């Protein structure tokens, strides 16, 4: 396999991402997102396991209204994200089965950190009603107050906790 291509310039990539976000505002009347797709599929799984429990749950019930949890816009968008990420890596020679980790962390520990960190992000995203894409990016560019509160809090939380997991990355 050929050597992977270099990553794009971050400012250029950021401007492109900004145009993608702008296209979402114009053509879909909403922004980007990610955590909503997880929430909608969680609602779908709970509804499949116990319909009465899901509809009695005020958090999940919202995703069951309308066309149901599997016809959620963000789920289609995330399917696109997976396809787009795959295609980009394919053309750049960056497809690779691997567990990426810091130099001092074992493979199994890294996977445990990944799962644990993901779970904590899940709790945070539920409480905040969004994540880096659906709240920080989408709401940030529309000057939503809550989006900026979330963004500043998320960076603050990450910087405050970074020294405790330094061994995982440095």
């Amino acid at each position, binding site marked *: 396999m050929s050597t992977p291509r270099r990553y794009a310039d971050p400012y250029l990539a950021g401007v492109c991402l900004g145009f993608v976000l702008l296209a979402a505002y114009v053509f879909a009347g909403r922004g980007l997102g990610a955590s909503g797709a997880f929430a909608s599929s969680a609602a779908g799984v709970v509804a499949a396991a116990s319909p009465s429990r899901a509809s009695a749950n005020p958090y999940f019930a919202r995703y069951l209204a309308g066309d149901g949890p599997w016809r959620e816009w963000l789920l289609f968008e995330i399917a696109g994200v997976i*396809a787009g990420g795959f295609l980009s890596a394919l053309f750049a020679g960056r497809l690779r089965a691997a567990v990426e980790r810091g130099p001092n962390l074992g493979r199994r520990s890294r996977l445990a950190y990944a799962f644990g960190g993901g779970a904590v992000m899940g709790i945070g995203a539920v409480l905040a009603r969004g*994540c880096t894409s659906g709240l920080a990016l989408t709401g940030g560019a529309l000057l939503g107050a809550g989006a900026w509160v979330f963004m500043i809090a998320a960076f603050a939380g990450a910087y405050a906790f970074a020294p405790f997991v330094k061994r995982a990355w440095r």
Partner: protein
Amino acid sequence: MNPFAVAVLIGIAFGWTLERAGLGSAPKLAGQFYLTDLTVFKVMFSAIVTAMLGAFWLSRLGILDLSQVYIPETFLGPQLGGGLLFGVGFVVAGLCPGTSCVAAATGRGDGAMVMMGMFSGVLVTGLAFAPLRHFYESTSRGSLTLPELLRIPYGVVVCGIVAMALIAFQFAERLEKRA
């Protein structure tokens, strides 16, 4: 056009851009929090500035009706608390929910684990929602925007954010050179 087709196309462009920037790689994202690689900040803020200026001018020119675009609602307490928690999870996981999908799609097992953790976190929090509901619905401010909160005209806030971003980009370049 079918809204789901639009969603898939926008998603493809989103995933493609994240991967091109290198944001499907956890150690690269984690560098943000040890000030060795500020790609996360540079990509995020150039995107915010671009989309913010685009939305501002398209609305001024009468092409985009901003009242028809959904602004994420503000709940100050939950977004402050949830944001802090989210940040802690972010630095442990090294990926956020969107970038974990890109990492998994390009073969990274840690990306798939972040996705599973994220799904479990949302599922368990949703199932244990009753005692959290009071906090979840507290400090609601509707679709409050920074210009309304600060009582500064919209265009001035836009200029202020552009200026802040340009200064911060200079600062980011210096930090990376030092690292």
